[in-house]
């Protein structure tokens, strides 16, 4: 009665076909050299393309910088809010929900209208770290907040203080270690999402990995296919990290 | 006439029998408890009766009709689960009228019937509440009313009280008995709590290792357990393994007083079981009359009117013997005191050795 049954298997087989086919065929397509010829030509081309590696390096740097910004700017603020200013929680919740309600393209419109200088800020690709920070904010905030709630911060702090620890010691030795899996999880998710981010980079005209794929895809579709298949693999590795860090729990999804 | 008959039921999982050779017949309106430790197969048996599990062999007859292969939804049995399992999205009233509703009864009739039953379980004033607004005991009453609403031929209760705290458990236990009698519905209750089984049932069916060991009235089970397992499981007491010697039982160096000559030949291997209320004690003054044993008081537990004492008997095996002594009489004895104990020859139950 409660077996998987024909219906259950049918659902799963259809799903496997839908999700498997594009992956397999994309990888296969990347070997196509026109007509009936297949080979590694496009991979050689990509390997000798300095622009690809520049774009990849930039995306990696941006991902790491965004994670750093979250750790320096958001994590301490959320911990301090929970400890000293729980009344500010609604404000934090509002800020963390806003990037979901304001689509990325709208935020970039607002940003470019409001912030028109100085050049040292908006001229460097690292300006992107600011919008990326907010793209990552909703789920990074959520997972840190859930992590904090589950450890009963107040009691831990009181216990720590009664043992003679000061605030810094408590945060470093008690709070952060217990947030480990939440932190690693949201860091990896942020890496994956920022690495593939396109909206801001494209509108603000910076050459990140996604922008590069799009560009090369305009005239070399097979190269774009090769990079797409590689991207899936990269995302997979990042998510494997999340799964291992989160002890089998899947992280929330990123923002597009 | 038997309303429920189970014949030769057998079920195996992973190459192992979880149930075998189950034979049971229940009279109309009877309440039988399936009693046993966890893993003894009692829940599997109940779920076979309910229709959630199809047995590998044997038959389930209800009112003379073979329902072994009938779907659970067609059996007209009310079931109450350990986890209450009320539908969380429905009020108490909607939960109770669920059965009549899916059967297609007119709405007015569903509601009328549901109200009657909520009244029967004493929850009339809570009909508009959702399950999460009710206490565990209240939820289980609603579940009982819900099960009765289908006018079941058989009521099945799967450990209905084990999730409740002690006080509510006692109260609801009596109430289940009252409601079951009023409704006159044949009932099977699964439990691992022997006190619950003895207090509520017409008959108790003790299970172990997928088999029915003994099916009898609570008094019979208590006084005349079929074997050592039943004896140990029902109530407390001391069990000794030994050999019959002139009607008594030889356990190591001790000859324990008994009256087994009529039922067991000399030299046969037996288990002897003696309940604490049969054992009497007094201080050891150096003499050891015939039919008494000597021991040291190891601990005493105050039970109110009685105090239960554990004696460690003399000898290499350190056998324990329990005795219930009136509390005012027990005050004179302290752990470490030497005592002698004795009992009537007819008091111990001597049974063939059970092989577990």
């Amino acid at each position, binding site marked *: 009665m409660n077996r998987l049954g024909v219906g259950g298997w049918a659902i799963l087989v259809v799903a496997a076909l839908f999700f498997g086919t*594009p992956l397999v065929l994309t990888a296969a397509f990347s070997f196509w050299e026109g007509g009936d010829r297949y080979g590694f030509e496009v991979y050689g081309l990509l390997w000798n393309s300095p622009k690809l590696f520049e774009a990849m390096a930039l995306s990696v740097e941006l991902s790491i910088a965004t994670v750093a910004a979250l750790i320096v700017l958001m994590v301490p603020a959320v911990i301090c809010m929970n400890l000293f200013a729980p009344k500010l929680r609604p404000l934090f919740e509002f800020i963390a929900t806003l990037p979901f309600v304001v*689509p990325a393209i709208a935020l*970039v419109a607002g940003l470019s*209208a409001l*912030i028109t200088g100085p050049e040292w800020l908006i001229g460097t690709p690292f300006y992107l770290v*600011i919008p990326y920070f907010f793209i990552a904010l909703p789920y990074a905030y959520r997972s840190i907040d859930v992590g904090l709630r589950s450890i009963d911060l107040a009691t831990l702090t009181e216990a720590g203080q009664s043992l003679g620890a000061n605030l810094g010691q408590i945060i470093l030795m008690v709070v952060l270690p217990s947030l480990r899996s939440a932190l690693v999880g949201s860091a990896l998710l942020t890496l994956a*999402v920022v690495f593939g981010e396109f*909206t801001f980079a494209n509108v603000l005209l910076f050459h990140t990995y996604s922008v590069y794929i799009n560009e090369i895809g305009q005239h070399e579709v097979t190269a774009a296919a090769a990079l797409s298949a590689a991207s899936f693999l990269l995302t997979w590795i990042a998510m494997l990290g999340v799964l291992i860090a989160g002890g089998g729990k899947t992280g929330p999804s990123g923002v597009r | 006439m038997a309303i429920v008959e189970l014949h030769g039921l057998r079920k195996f999982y992973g190459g192992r029998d979880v149930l075998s050779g189950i034979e049971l017949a229940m009279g109309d309106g009877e309440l039988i408890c399936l009693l046993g430790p966890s893993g003894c197969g009692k829940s599997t048996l109940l779920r076979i009766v309910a229709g959630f599990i199809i047995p590998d062999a044997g038959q389930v007859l209800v009112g003379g009709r073979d329902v072994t292969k009938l779907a659970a939804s067609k059996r007209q049995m009310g079931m109450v689960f350990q986890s209450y399992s009320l539908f969380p999205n*429905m009020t108490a009233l909607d939960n109770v009228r669920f059965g009549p509703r899916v059967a297609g009864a007119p709405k007015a009739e569903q509601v009328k019937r549901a109200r009657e039953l909520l009244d029967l379980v004493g929850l009339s004033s809570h009909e508009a509440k959702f399950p*999460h607004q009710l206490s565990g005991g209240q939820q289980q009453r609603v579940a009982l009313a819900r099960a009765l609403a289908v006018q079941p031929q058989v009521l099945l209760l799967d450990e209905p009280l084990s999730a409740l705290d002690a006080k509510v458990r006692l109260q609801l236990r009596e109430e289940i008995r009252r409601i079951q009698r009023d409704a006159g519905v044949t009932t099977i209750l699964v439990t691992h709590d022997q006190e619950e089984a003895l207090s509520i049932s017409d008959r108790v069916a003790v299970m172990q290792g997928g088999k029915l060991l003994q099916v009898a009235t609570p008094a019979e089970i208590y006084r005349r357990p079929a074997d050592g397992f039943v004896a140990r499981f029902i109530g407390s007491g001391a069990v000794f393994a030994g050999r019959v010697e002139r009607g008594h039982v030889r356990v190591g160096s001790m000859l324990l007083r008994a009256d087994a000559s009529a039922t067991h030949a000399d030299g046969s291997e037996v288990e002897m079981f003696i309940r604490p209320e049969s054992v009497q004690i007094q201080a050891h003054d150096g003499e050891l009359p015939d039919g008494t044993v000597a021991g040291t008081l190891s601990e005493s537990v105050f039970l109110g009117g009685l105090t239960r004492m554990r004696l460690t008997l003399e000898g290499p095996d350190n056998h324990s013997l329990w005795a219930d002594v009136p509390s005012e009489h027990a005050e004179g004895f302290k752990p470490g005191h030497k005592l002698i104990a004795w009992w009537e020859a007819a008091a111990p139950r001597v049974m063939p050795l059970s092989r577990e």
Partner: protein
Amino acid sequence: MKAPIAWLFIGAFLLVSAIFLVAPTAMLAVQAVIGDDGLTLEYVQTLGSYRYVKAFEHSLYLSVLSATVGVIAGALIAFAMLKPGAPRWLRSVVTSFAAVAANFAGVPLAFAFISTVGTLGLLTSMLKHIGVDLYAMGFSLFSIPGLTLVYSYFQIPLMVIIIIPAFEAMQPAWREAAENLGATGGQYWRMVGLPVLAPSLLSGWILLFGSAFSAYATAYALTSGNISLVTTEISAVLSGNVSSEPQVGAALSVGMIVVMVLVLAASQMLARRASRWTVKQ
């Protein structure tokens, strides 16, 4: 002050959020109604033009369609994989794959589908080989149904991840109790299963709607102007590809935010109704 450094952290976070998140959002609202000669409704009125009405129609249609497909397919997959009869390994395979696919979006996803069912795609040419011409049959990857197909690739896994906890919270005993009381499988799902799942399905739908509505990269790489969506229209204004003033981009953005807020509010009202039986705050 007990911990001045704590306020420093909180203050820094709030300040950055105010300047780079709240202020730009507010800026959009201001920009949308202020022209060269002060307050004006001119830009908001351009939203009523055929071009932008179509863009909103397409965006809404695509979001509703892909969210609905995602909710139904995602729930079915989660349901099938969580059945007690399903093998154990299946569960870890599906959850880990869903985590990857839900985050596989944007340009790479677009090119994966172009490589597969684009005009030159491998599946397209394979099917043509056996006499099935997808594009002659009216299919196009660069249409709303085509986009829905592509969006499903991240929407369905997203739903699987969201809905798994809700399925796990359903007690098997509910099903048994219903069966025992004479209910058929259909009656159980209609009266108990779906009502219990409803709040989770609804919040899943909202998340999927939002993710499709604000998606830009996938659409940009796929359509390049074939179909106008609100996001691609905004980017066209921003990059100067169309001769519109930036204020129009602001008005479009405000329009998107209004839609998101309305959908969120409506869903909260529905969710409150659907979950009136759950624990009240």
